[in-house]
C-alpha cells in the first residue's frame, strides 16, 4: 500500500487538529447524533485521513451530515475537534469538485445561505429559500414548515437592511482572496 501522508498533513494544518493522536476510543462516533446516517463514521474518517485515503474521504456523504454540534470535540479525551476537521474536509471537497456528487442539496443550501448574507448582510429567509428551491428543484422539502412560519408572520417579505452591509461584503472579498471562490461562482 502507498501511504500518502500529505493529505493527513494538509488536514492537520488546515483544521488545527492533531488527528494522529486519536486512539479510536470510538467516543465521537458513539456520541454523534448523526453517525447512524453516515457512510463513514467520524473515527473511521480520521483513520482514513491518516492512511492517505483522500478521495474516499472527500467523496463521502458523511462529511455533509456533520452539523457541527461539537459533541465529539467537547468529549474527545485527546481534545480533537472532529467537527473542525469536518469543516476542513468540506472545504477540501468543494475545492476538489467532489461536493456536488456527494450531497448536492446540502452544498446548494449552504451556497445559497452564504450568498444571501453576502447580498443583504443578513440572512433573508424568503429569497434564500426560493433561491435554494430554484437551484435544487427541491420544492417540497420544507414547504409545510415554511407555510407554518409564513402563517405566523415569521417570514418577512422584504430583507432587512443592516448598517454593516458593506463591511460584510469586504469580508467576503477577503475570504475569496485567501480561499478561492465558491465553486458555483467560478
Amino acid at each position, binding site marked *: *500500500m502507498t501511504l500518502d501522508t500529505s493529505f493527513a498533513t494538509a488536514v492537520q494544518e488546515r483544521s488545527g487538529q*492533531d488527528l494522529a493522536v486519536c486512539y479510536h476510543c470510538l*467516543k465521537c*462516533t*458513539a*456520541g454523534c447524533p448523526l453517525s447512524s446516517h453516515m457512510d463513514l463514521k467520524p473515527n*473511521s474518517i480520521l483513520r482514513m485521513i491518516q492512511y492517505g485515503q483522500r478521495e474516499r474521504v472527500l467523496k463521502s456523504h458523511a462529511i455533509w451530515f456533520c452539523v457541527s454540534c461539537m459533541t465529539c470535540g467537547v*468529549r474527545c*479525551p485527546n481534545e480533537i475537534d472532529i467537527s473542525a476537521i469536518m469543516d476542513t474536509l468540506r472545504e477540501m471537497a468543494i475545492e476538489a469538485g467532489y461536493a456536488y456528487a456527494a450531497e448536492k442539496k446540502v452544498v446548494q443550501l449552504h451556497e445559497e445561505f452564504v450568498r444571501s448574507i453576502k447580498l443583504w448582510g443578513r440572512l433573508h429567509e424568503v429569497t434564500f429559500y426560493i433561491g435554494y428551491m430554484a437551484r435544487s428543484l427541491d420544492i417540497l422539502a420544507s414547504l409545510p414548515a415554511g407555510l407554518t412560519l409564513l402563517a405566523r408572520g415569521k417570514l418577512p417579505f422584504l430583507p432587512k437592511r443592516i448598517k454593516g452591509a458593506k463591511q460584510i461584503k469586504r469580508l467576503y472579498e477577503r475570504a475569496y482572496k485567501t480561499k478561492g471562490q465558491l465553486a458555483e461562482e467560478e
Partner: protein
Amino acid sequence: MQMSEITLTIDQQQVTLRADASVLEACGEIGIKIPTLCYHKALPAYGACRLCLVETELGGRTRIQASCTLPVSEGLIVRTDTERVTKTRRVMAELLLARCPGSDRVREVAAEIGVTDTRFEEKNEDCILCGLCTRVCSMLMGSGAIDFGGRGDTRRVGPAYDKHSSICMACGACAQICPANAVDLTKVSARPVRPVGADYDAGLVARSSIYIPYQQAIPKIPVIDRSTCMHFLKPAEVDACRACESACPAGAIDYTQEDEMVDLQVGAVVLAPGFCLYDAAEKLEMGYAWSPDVVTSLQFERILSASGPYEGQVLRPSNGEHAKQIAFLQCIGSRDDDHDYCSSVCCMYATKEAIIAMEHQPGLECSIFFMDLRAFGKGFDAYYERAKELGVRFIRCRPSSVEQIEGSDGLRVKYVDEEGHTASADFDLVVLSVGLKPPEEAKELADKFGIELDGYGFASTKAISPVVTSRDGVYVCGPFSEPKDIPETVTDASGAAAQAMSLLAEGRHTLVTQKEYPPEKDITGQRPRIGVFVCHCGRNIGGVVNVPETAEFAQSLPDVVYAEHNLYTCSSDTQVKIRELIKEHDLNRVIVASCTPRTHEPLFRDTVREAGLNPYLFEMANIRDQCSWVHMHEPAAATEKAKDLVKMAVAKARLLEPLYITPVPVTSVALVIGGGVAGMSAALNMADQGFPVHLVERTPELGGNLRHIYYLLNEEDDPQSELEKLVSKIEAHPNVTVWLSSNVARVDGFVGNFASTIVRDGEENVVEHGIIIVATGATEYVPTEYLYGSDERVITQRQLEERLASGELGAKRVVMVQCVGSREDGRMYCSRVCCSEAIKNALKIKAEHPGTDVFVLYRDVRTYGFREKYYTEARRQGVRFVRYEPENKPAITADPERLHVEAFDPILQTTLAIDADLVVLAPAVVPHEDAADVAQMLKVPLTSEGFFLEAHMKLRPVDFSADGVFLAGLAHSPKGIDESIAQAQATAARAATILSKDEYTPEAIIACVDEEICAGCGLCASVCSYDAPEIVTVRGRRVSRINQALCKGCGACASACPSGAIQQLGFRPKQITEMVSAALEWE
C-alpha cells in the same frame, strides 16, 4: 453546698430526693412508670401532652396535675393509679389520637394506657405540639430556628414568618427528637438538607457528626467531625448540644481535646498517603451528578460488600430494586487530556466487580465498555479470560454519554460495536471506573517534607530508584508515586522499609529495650487452680449475654478457684488486676471468656507470663464473635451458650500443659541466587544493612537481562551506566561475595540455618546462611511464528534495540507485532513490558530515523501508569497502531524485495497489505527451562505458567510459603526494571526481619511425634505445606521428626496420622474430647 432533700409519698411509698426534682422524676426513682410524650430528660419539662397527669394531695386539697412540671414538695402525697387519674389520662390520649390519628407513636402510647379509639372528631395533623423540637433547637442547639406560632386552633410549629430559616443549621435534632416523625427539614431550612455521607461507604450511607469511621478502624472508637458537629459550629458560650456526652456511659467524650504536637527525631521518613479518586461529577455527560443509579466503582465496592449499605445485594440506589443489567464505563478521568496517564487498576477492578456481582446475583448481566483491557499483572489475563467465559460482555468502545431513557427510570448507553455500527444498550445501574489522582494532601506533604512532585502531582521518583524521592532519607510507597495495584503497593512498602533500614543500619537495636520477665513457676504435680475472667466488652457481650450470671456459673465449676467479670478485660488496668489475682489465688490456669483469640490472645499470654506462669496455661472462650454477635436477638439462649463455652474452656484448661519454645540460632548471612538487576539490588541493600551476602550468578557476567537494555522510555536514566555503577558497587562492597559462573547445586536446612553447596569450576563450596533470595530471572521465548528464524528481516525487539543503540536501522518501513507467544493457550499471561518496549523503540526510530513508517500490530496497548504518555507521543509522531484479534493474526510472507504483512484493521474493516523492510516481534517473557529444577531444590512451588509462586499474590508478594525464602524480579513474573528493583529491595527488607535477630523464635503450638508409636509412614510429610516433618532413621527405625522452626501448628499432620503418633501441642485429642464432653454433658 449540699442540695437539700425532700421527702414525699408516692402511691404510699416514701421517696426522698433532691429538692429541684419533679414529681415525674421522683416516680422514676422508685420505678413507677408514667406515660409521657413531650418529656425528654435532656430538656426542661413543658407539660404539653398532659399524659403524665397524677393526683396530688397537699394540705387536704386534691388536684390533677402534670407530674413533669410539678416540683416535689415536702409532705406531698401523690397517687398515680387512681381511677380518676386513669380516666383523665385516657381523655388526654383520646384528644391526642383525634388530633393525630395517623401517628404510630401516639397510637402506641395511647394503647399503653388502654386507649385505642377516640370519641372526638378526627383531624389529620402530624404534629402533637409537644414542643420537643422547639426546645431542642433553642436550648440544646442554640439556634432557635423553629418555635410555636399562632394560637388556639391555628397553633403550629415552624420557622419565623413561615419562611425557610437561614438560622436553621439543618442539624436534624428536631427531626430526631420528634416523637411523631412530623418534621420535614426541607420545609424549615434555607440550607440544603443533605445527609452527611460516611466516607467509608463512599457517600452511600449517612452518618452523624460523631461516628466510628469503619468496622476495622484502629482504634475502634468514635470521632467527632468538627465541621458538622453543632457543639463546635456554635460559639463556645452557647455550649450547644452535648447529647453524645450525656449518652456515653464511660464518660469518654472530651470536647476540649486539641491536636497534640509531638516532636519526633527520626532518621528516615516513609510517605504512604495513598490516593484519591477522580470526581465523577466533573463529567456531566456520564450522569453521576444527576442519577442516583450512576455510581463510582468505590461505591459499587460498598454495594457489593456484605458489611455495606445493602449487605451485598446488588440493588439500585434509586429504588432499592435488584439491578439486572449493569454497565461499567472505563477510563473515567484517566487517559484523557487532563490526566494523560493510566490508573492501572481500573480494568481489573471492574472485571472483578462484574464477576463478584454476578456471584451475588446469578442472572445479572454485566457489560464493560473499555478501550484497552489492561490485565498486565500476574494471573490477571487468566482472570480476564475467565470473566469472558462467565459471560461478562466486553465492548471495546468508550461511550459518549449516559442518558435517562425517556419515560422510564433506566439508563441508556450508546456505543459502537465491533463492526462499527452504532448501537445502544439499556441498563439499570452504571458503574464509572474512576481514575486515581494524587492524594489531597500531596502538595502539603511535598512542601512539608521538601520533596518534588511530578507534572501530575504524584511524588517524583526515578526508574532506577523507585521508592526514593528527590530528598535523601524520604521514601515513598504505594500510589503516591504512581497509580498501582495491591501487589505492587505491598512490594513498594517493603522496598521503602529496606531503604530506610539500609540508611539507618548503624542504629539497629540501639533504641530497643528488652523486656524482662519473672522466672516461670513450676506447676508440675499441682491440681488445676483455674481463674476465669468473663468480659462484658462494653455492650458487645454484656448487651446480650448475662455476664455476671456467666461469671457466677464459672465460679461453680470444679477446679475454678476464682471467677470475676470485667467491663473490658483487655484494658491495661485489668491486666494489672489479673496479674495480682494470679498471685493472690495461686492460679495455675487462666481463662478469659471474651472475644476471638485473634484480637487479644497475645496480650493475655503476655500478662500471664508477666505473672510468672507459662503463657500456654492460658485459654480463651469466644463468647463474642461466636456467641453474643450471632445470637443478638436471643439473650437467654446466648447466656446459656456462653456458660457452655466457659465450661468447655474449663474442661480443656484442666488439661493444659506448659509449652516451651527453643529459640533457633540464626546465621545472619544471605544467599542471593541470580546476578541480574534484581539479585544485585537485593544483595546491595542487604550488604548496606550490614549482612554478609553471597551472590551467585551462573553466567560469567553480572547484569542479566539489563545488559541488553540501552535506553529507557523516559530517556533520563542511562541503563548501561546505571548497570555499571551497580556492578561496581557490588564488586567493591566488603559484605558481598560474588560467585560467577557458579551454580547452587544443593540446599539443606531451614530458615536461619541453611547450608548450600555452590559449585564453581567443578569445585564444591558449602556456605551457611539464614535466608535465600530467588532472583533467577527469566528469558525470552524464541518465536517460531512470523518467519522468525527463517528470514533475517524478522527480528525481536531486543535485537532491534541493539541495532538502534548502535545507530543503525536499515529499514524504511517497520512493522512491529505484539503478543508473540503471550496471551494464548499454554501461556495465558501478559508479558507486561513489551508494549512499552515497542513504543520505546518506535519513538527511538522516529527520533533518529525520521521518515520511517512504523506500524504496531497489537491486541491491547498496555502502557499502564505513566507509560501512557509515551503511547500518546508515539501516536502524535505518526506511529500507526492497528489492532488484531487472536483469531485473526497478521500473516507474513516474504519475497526477496520486501516482507508482506497482511493485517485486518477493525476500524477500517478492511485488510491492510503492508510492505515492510523489517518485522519486529515482541516475544513472551518465559521462565528459564530449569526453573522447575530450582523450585524442587528449594522446595518451593511454581505457577501453572512456570514462574515461582509466592505465598499470597496480593499480601505477601515477595515471600514464599516456606519461611526464609524470598522472590524477586522476572523469576516472579514479567516486569520492568523499576518494578524489579522495588521487588528486590522488598525481599531485602523481608530477609532482614530474620537476619537482624540472633535467634528465630518458632511457634510453640506445634506438632509433636511420639516416636514409639510412629511407623514412619511419611503421610505427615506429604500433607505438610511447610516441609516440617522429616522422616529420619532412629535406632534402625524410621520415624517422623518435626522441625520446630518450620512447623506452623496447622494440625494437618496430626489429623492425617493413621496411628495417632502425631499430636498437636495445645490441641491434644484428650483436650478436645474433654471439651466435647463438657459441651454435651457426658460423664
